[in-house]
């Protein structure tokens, strides 16, 4: 018990070491190569293609969810796809992030009237960044990733605030 005060989730050692890891995390956000629909051409193929060159931001694709940090949900999710999306999310190791790319993944997009389509992937998995557009341009995806990096940066502040609240 006593050790928890020094290494537990609200300890200074934990928070400061996580802060260090966060630097590494946001410099190497590896996404899972999992394109569902149209957005995958723009968000996965073109963004990592020669012009937009995602690699320079440390963003690179991994074929397996076990090796990935980020899942880009790039397309419409329907009832047949939903269990698979959820399972892939469950297979990813912590910490994991979800980027909901495009109108379909955010709200159901142009197909939201069809009852087989799920109105937004946030019904199934927690989403960190929403990228609007149909499809979003590769620049938008890169901007979305920069927002995700900012979010990871802010995690230290959140942890500190939680520790302070807990201490009181």
């Amino acid at each position, binding site marked *: 018990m006593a050790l928890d005060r020094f290494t537990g989730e609200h300890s200074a050692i934990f928070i400061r070491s996580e802060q260090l890891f966060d630097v590494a995390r946001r410099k190497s956000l590896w996404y899972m190569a999992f394109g569902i629909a149209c957005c995958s051409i723009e968000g996965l193929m073109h963004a990592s293609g020669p*012009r937009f060159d995602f690699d320079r931001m440390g963003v690179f694709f991994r074929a397996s969810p076990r090796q990935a940090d980020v899942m880009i949900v790039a397309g419409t999710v*329907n*009832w047949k*796809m939903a269990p*698979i999306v959820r399972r892939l999310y469950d297979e990813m190791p912590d910490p994991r992030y979800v980027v909901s790319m495009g109108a379909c993944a955010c709200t159901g997009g142009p*197909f939201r009237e069809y009852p087989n389509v799920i109105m937004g992937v946030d019904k199934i998995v927690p989403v960190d960044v929403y990228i609007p557009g149909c*499809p979003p341009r590769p620049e938008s995806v890169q901007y979305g990733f920069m927002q995700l990096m900012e979010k990871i940066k802010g995690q230290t502040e959140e942890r500190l605030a939680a520790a302070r609240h807990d201490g009181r």
Partner: protein
Amino acid sequence: MQQPDTTAVRSALEHAGVTVSVEEVERLGVVCRVEPASVRDALIALRDWEHSFDFQVDLFGEDTREAIDVVYHLRSFSRDEDLFVKATHPYDSVLTSVWDIHPAALMPERELCELFGLRILGHPNPKRLLTTDGCPPYLRKEVSIRTPEEVRDRASQVVNVAELTGAFGSIAAEPAPAPAASAASAGAEGGPAPLGESQPLLLPDAIKRAPSGVDHVSTEHLILSMGPQHPSTHGVLRLKMEIDGEEVVSTEAVIGHLHRGIEKLAESRRFNAVGTLMDRGDYVSGIHNELAFALATEQLLEVDVPRRASWLRVLLGELNRIASHITWYGPVGLDTGVMGLFLYVFRDRESLLDILEDITGQRMMFNYVRPGGVVADITTTAEAKIRAFLDTFDTYMDENEEIIMGNEIFQARTQGLGVLTPEMALAFGVTGGNLRSTGVSWDLRKDRPYSCYDEFDFQVPVAETGDVYARCQVRVGEMRQSTRIIRQCIDGLPEGEFTAKVPRVLRPPAGETYAAVESPRGELGIHLFTDGSDSPYRMRYRPPAMYALQAGETLLAGGLIADAVVVMGSMDVVLGEIDR
């Protein structure tokens, strides 16, 4: 294209003992109405007739509010004629499978039965194709889509995540027996086969190929599931393979992970707005999708499209064709281990998308071709960009071809692999580059010219062997021909209007028509039913890639697992189009 002789068709069918009423429907062609019980006899008679209607273009249904019309679209290549056979089935009745007459019916029949709530008899694999268990027959008129209130209130939809993961546990077993199956009772039709998990999966024995089994070691067969998350399945395709060691015994493609109801939603969209849905169908060749729908609408409206608009359609279509083939070309390199090619061809695709964006305003979802013409004229900057692209692309093509097609390793890997015979391709309804790789020269741009294609000078690349290498040769050749067409377009673009005078709200007269274009994947057809209102009554989207996928399933049997990726990749399937 000619129309078949109605009296000859009638006498041929009556000779076979089929009661038939043959009529010539305006703007569509010759339609034979037969009783559901005699559909099989009619199809056999038409196939074995000297006019040989032996190619099934499409099979789909239509809800007439009284019954379900099942339409068999047949074609005779020898006479260049199309024929429609229609049978009226009451709701919830039994459809008799015709897959042994036309194997092309395998997947469309499953789709038809689940989306219209029919039961099926005599199908080797009667499972749901696109939807999951419990889904209503969406394409029936009585099944409505979400209301605007439901759509606005996103919170109204609650998904139980725990149930989802539970549902996933059973995904290795097929989610649901078709409504056809579960509801089928042993009736007068001879008792439908019991269905579900006990049924051996996959294709019928006639198509199943046993592995070579050289060493006579008896091994147990494994079921291997590839996809829907797999880096090389080109979308959300799931291949369920029965394997013996390394050899594939049989394959079943599980699709429907991207089923978004484009056909259903089109019934609630105005004619001008359906283009947005069509773009998202086959998302790498949006212009061709829009064009198919625009042509169908124009046939009903009887609008004359200005020559400049047709030329612009050709120009954009060919630019889009190259862009589409590039999305196939790069990943084929990835599948065979040539990473560099992906980077080279995507550089070219970026400049193509720049041009398309300049003209249409979007990189992917153009919504450029509308009924009556196109939405905007070509810009002066686009013309310069196209010329700059043409100047470099031919050199780049030579380089790319050296990297992959001239590569000895690639040749050794792909030659003689996944051989598609012309007979098999025609039986499964394969069109486009996959058909041309088997030596059958059939290109709608040449054989049934639409949109001023007859004014251009180009060749149709045809290969003989039908293997993966031949499919690559055909597509690479097509890219080169497309640059020729683009050059002619840009040099001789006629003056004039870019759109005809059409009303803002289109109300085509009630009728029925079929329009097809040669998309990068094959014959993309739109069969449009109208009732005089401002939105289609029923729109059938013929997905060429679905027919290619059916053939691909059988190609994998007898091969190795490692080759499955390459063979499937070379077929160029786009799941957005297959699932719709």
